[in-house]
């Protein structure tokens, strides 16, 4: 019988095998070291799947050698055959994570016992290693075993993939551990013989079943000597279920011969009997959420799908601002796969559904609890369609920092937002209030066409000429109508720009707001910017951050434009630089999202920062309910576009206002005083999900038209994670 694993072949670089006398290698360490590395590279070149390096108490340190080999190879799996002790499991886990990250997920561990026959701490070591690698668990790792004690260490780093941990050995105790918890078992054929392998498999299988595991979860690896014939090997694979064969040799001729003769013959013979690739382990499946038909995930998406038990889960569960625990994250790589993903979502009508590009949604719930997330992060291409017309096509998963960097060599830029980590998909379907807004308008004002997958799975292109109604709707309410899979933009020529960061005294925040508002409104359109205030802290001086971009490359012009802004209050610090637009956008944090909780944000658009509004804002700041208050400039070119041209309709505003806090009741209690001054809102900065907010985001005529389109394009209300318009809703 077989365990259904895909058959793999490797080379075991066992320094013992290379002792003088067997005539392969010279003894001096340098020669041996160089040869081991050369053999590893040769193995990769020849097409072996695995290079295993054995611990050698008298020779080179196996981990150091493996790390070196990792840097000099690109594809092979790197198997460390190593023992605890002398290695410490917690340190080994950290090392394994590092090498796995550096080698893009190529590491696996085999715990060997060296001279020792019986298990001694291996089971504990496996638990500790897994515990350290489980970086998704926020609790520190505490372990009290017979062999190891860890008072309270921090877990992590998260490896690039699930690092398999295998056990090598023959004693009953070791076989039991292999069956109970390990991902694999490794043994030398020469030590056991075929019958011994069968007997050991039996012990492992029983231990696995007793622990509630499928024996197929444990890969069986046999170390073979080069002399063994194909005829002898075949039964080990088809009857004893060996999934990996490691040839113990450092002789290039032997390695070549095995690849040429044995591997094709074995693969062919096995091909006939090979089972299916086993799915996720029982432990992973145990973390699945109710209501999701995991076995029906479309084949095209199965490979990239992530569920709660997977290592990758930590990287995809949260967003920039929210902690989440989705039951399934689908990660389509093509438009066709997006169609498949939406089909799967349609088959789960009662399950929460979030759509994600780069996960910076504030209004958009691109993560959830127990639901499905479709992440189009992989659709992140950026290509120039027509250089003369400055037409570019960008995937929703691209981030604005990447977009800016890609356009910079052409001397182009596309005003988006202020942060390079924000995704194209979320921003370019809603608005896009960016560093060049007053001069060049919103991001959506540059949109010429989109390709999108509608709720029913149809793929359409929308532009001024095709599906013009959808093209209108997608520019401001896109999340209601489909998954945009690519955006065609006409971008601007933008040279170096002046970027100013001022720290201004805010003892009188109301006066500051009024002065700044007036200065901005009076400024030419080549100035855009923002102002940020924090809560007032009693007894401490108050400051505001004033930032501005001047689209000019002459220092004189820049200074000229900035002077009035620098004068809005006492200036405590200033930094003005001339740099490419892409330089401002190179501010995205690296790494995956780790947010916890659920922030509260309130959004409003306003024409002028009047003294009355400013006084209300100052009261809000004094209340302490809001920890972040930010005003971005719109107006200028944004206001040139007629209100009915796009679903983003509040075109007369000069300012976009946002307040963030954590307690919705406290925030609303103070926001209420500001609310009356607004003329609508930019939906991207609002977290309130009440349907009333729709009337703030869209004026009546716009909302009526959107509602009608929603009925037509999404009658079953599939797309509902972001300012959703209920197709069954009233005419409000």
């Amino acid at each position, binding site marked *: 019988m077989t365990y259904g694993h895909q058959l793999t072949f490797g080379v075991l670089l066992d320094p013992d095998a290379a002792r003088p006398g067997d005539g392969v290698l010279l003894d001096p360490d340098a020669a041996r*070291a160089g040869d081991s590395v050369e053999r590893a590279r040769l193995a990769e070149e020849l097409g072996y799947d695995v290079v295993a390096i054995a611990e050698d108490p008298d020779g080179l340190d196996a981990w150091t050698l493996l*790390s*070196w080999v990792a*840097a000099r190879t690109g594809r092979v799996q790197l198997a460390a055959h190593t023992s605890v002790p002398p290695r410490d499991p917690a*340190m080994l886990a*950290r090392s394994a994570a590092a090498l796995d990250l550096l080698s893009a997920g190529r590491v696996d561990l085999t715990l060997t016992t060296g001279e020792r026959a019986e298990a001694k701490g291996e089971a504990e070591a496996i638990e500790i290693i897994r515990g350290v690698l489980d970086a998704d668990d926020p609790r520190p790792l505490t372990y009290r075993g017979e062999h190891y004690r*860890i008072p309270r*260490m921090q877990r992590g780093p998260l490896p690039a993939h699930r690092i398999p941990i295998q056990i090598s050995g023959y004693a009953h105790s070791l076989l039991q551990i292999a069956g109970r918890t390990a991902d694999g078992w490794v043994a030398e054929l020469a030590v056991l013989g075929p019958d011994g392998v069968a007997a050991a498999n039996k012990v492992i299988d029983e231990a696995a079943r007793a622990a509630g595991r499928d024996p197929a979860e444990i890969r069986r690896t046999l170390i073979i000597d080069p002399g063994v014939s194909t005829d002898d090997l075949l039964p080990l694979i088809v009857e004893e279920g060996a999934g990996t064969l490691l040839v113990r040799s450092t002789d290039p001729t032997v390695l070549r011969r095995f690849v040429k003769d044995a591997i094709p013959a074995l693969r062919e013979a096995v091909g006939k009997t090979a089972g299916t690739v086993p799915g996720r382990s029982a432990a992973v499946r145990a973390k699945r959420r109710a209501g999701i038909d995991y076995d029906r995930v479309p084949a095209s998406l199965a490979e990239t799908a992530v569920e709660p038990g997977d290592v990758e889960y930590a990287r995809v569960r949260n967003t920039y601002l929210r902690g989440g625990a989705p039951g399934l994250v689908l990660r389509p790589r093509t438009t066709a796969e997006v169609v498949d993903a939406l089909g799967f979502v349609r088959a789960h009508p009662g399950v929460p559904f979030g759509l994600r590009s780069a996960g910076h949604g504030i209004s958009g719930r691109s993560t959830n609890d127990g639901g499905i997330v479709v992440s189009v992060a992989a659709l992140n291409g950026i290509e120039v369609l027509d250089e003369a017309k400055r037409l570019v096509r960008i995937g929703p998963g691209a981030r604005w920092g990447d977009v800016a960097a890609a356009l910079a060599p052409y001397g182009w830029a596309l005003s988006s937002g202020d942060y390079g980590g924000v995704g194209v998909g979320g921003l370019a379907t809603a608005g896009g209030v960016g560093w060049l807004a007053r001069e060049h308008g919103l991001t959506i004002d540059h949109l010429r066409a989109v390709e999108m997958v509608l709720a029913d799975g149809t793929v359409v292109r929308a532009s001024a000429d095709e599906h013009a109604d959808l093209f209108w709707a997608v520019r401001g309410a896109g999340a209601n109508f489909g998954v945009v899979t690519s955006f065609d933009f006409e971008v601007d020529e933008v040279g170096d720009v002046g970027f100013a960061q001022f720290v201004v005294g805010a003892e009188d925040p109301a006066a500051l707001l009024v002065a700044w508002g007036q200065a901005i409104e009076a400024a030419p359109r080549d100035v855009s910017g923002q102002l940020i205030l924090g809560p007032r802290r009693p007894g401490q001086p108050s400051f505001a951050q004033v930032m501005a971009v001047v689209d000019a490359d002459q220092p004189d012009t820049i200074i000229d434009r900035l002077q009035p802004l620098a004068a809005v209050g006492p200036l405590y610090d200033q930094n003005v630089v001339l740099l490419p637009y892409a330089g401002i956008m190179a501010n995205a944090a690296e790494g995956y999202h780790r947010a916890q909780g659920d922030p509260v944000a309130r959004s409003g658009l306003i024409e002028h920062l009047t003294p009355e509004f400013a006084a209300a804002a100052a009261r809000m700041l004094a209340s302490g309910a809001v920890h972040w208050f930010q005003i971005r400039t719109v107006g200028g070119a944004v206001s040139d576009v007629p209100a009915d041209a796009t679903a983003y309709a509040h075109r007369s505003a000069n300012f976009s206002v946002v307040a963030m806090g954590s307690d919705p009741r406290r925030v609303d209690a103070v926001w209420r005083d500001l609310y009356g001054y607004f003329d609508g809102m930019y939906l991207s900065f609002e977290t309130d999900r009440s349907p009333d907010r729709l009337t703030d985001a869209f004026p009546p005529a716009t909302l009526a038209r959107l509602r009608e389109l929603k009925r037509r394009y999404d009658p079953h209300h599939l797309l509902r994670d972001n300012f959703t318009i209920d197709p069954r809703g009233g005419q409000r």
Partner: protein
Amino acid sequence: MTDYGHDLQFGAFITPTAQPAHQAVELAVVADRAGLDLATFQDHPYQPRFHDTWTLLSYAAARTERIHLSGNVLNLPLRPPAPLARSLASLDVLSGGRVELGIGAGGFWDPIVAMGGRRLSPGESVAALEEGIEVIRQVWAVDRPGPVQVRGEYYQVVGAKRGPAPAHDINIWVGAYKPRMLALVGRAADGVLPSLGYLPGGAEDLAGINRHIDEAAGAAGRDPRAVRRLLNIGGRFAPTGRAFLDGPAEQWAEDLAGLALEYGVSAFILAADDAPTIERFAAEVAPATRQLVAEERTY
């Protein structure tokens, strides 16, 4: 004026950040190409935001060609000396003699203990480091007869086979500030590696550091010149000079030449996590400093 006459070396002190995974390696490659002498990484095994420093050093060594690499400094309490010595020798062999051993007695005991390490008092940790260095040197000394024999209070390594032999004489540089540790440096180490930012009195504290080391070296019958004085530094390039190591490259060179001539510092390791700074340090500061020092030394 103190000058131990060493050639000047310049290095980078790179954060071993685990995210993005290749950032630290890429910076080491930049340092290598730019012609720096040393790429170094701090070692805090209890800090999961960082790569395991040893794995990173090994990987980075395989991706570079000329530059020497070192921990800055490796954490002895979580890295037992005998395996550490073997790892160092192995990497030295693989890299053709490009590994040095920056080592420290450990400073942050709470997280060390939280990971299963043993808490030591400052005095104990000095003694442990001295034993550790003895173990390491014995492992490397393949030509000496018999196995490793260290029956210490903190490390007992008795009867272990020596080797592998490193490819070159690996330098042992100790992160040291206080008298007892400095005395150990004078007796047993090849260099001292403090951070300028941790010196309460600033650069002037280097005089005291030198005095302790030189006295201990003398007492042990060693030439004080056997101990290289390295220094971790931080700074920023600015169009006009504002402060020490805050200004244009020429000013940096003057500042560093001052340290070299006044306190005998002969290796400057700059904390930098961006390629332009590393390149500028190598291309503009290093040659100018070398020239200034050479000019002074010829008088």
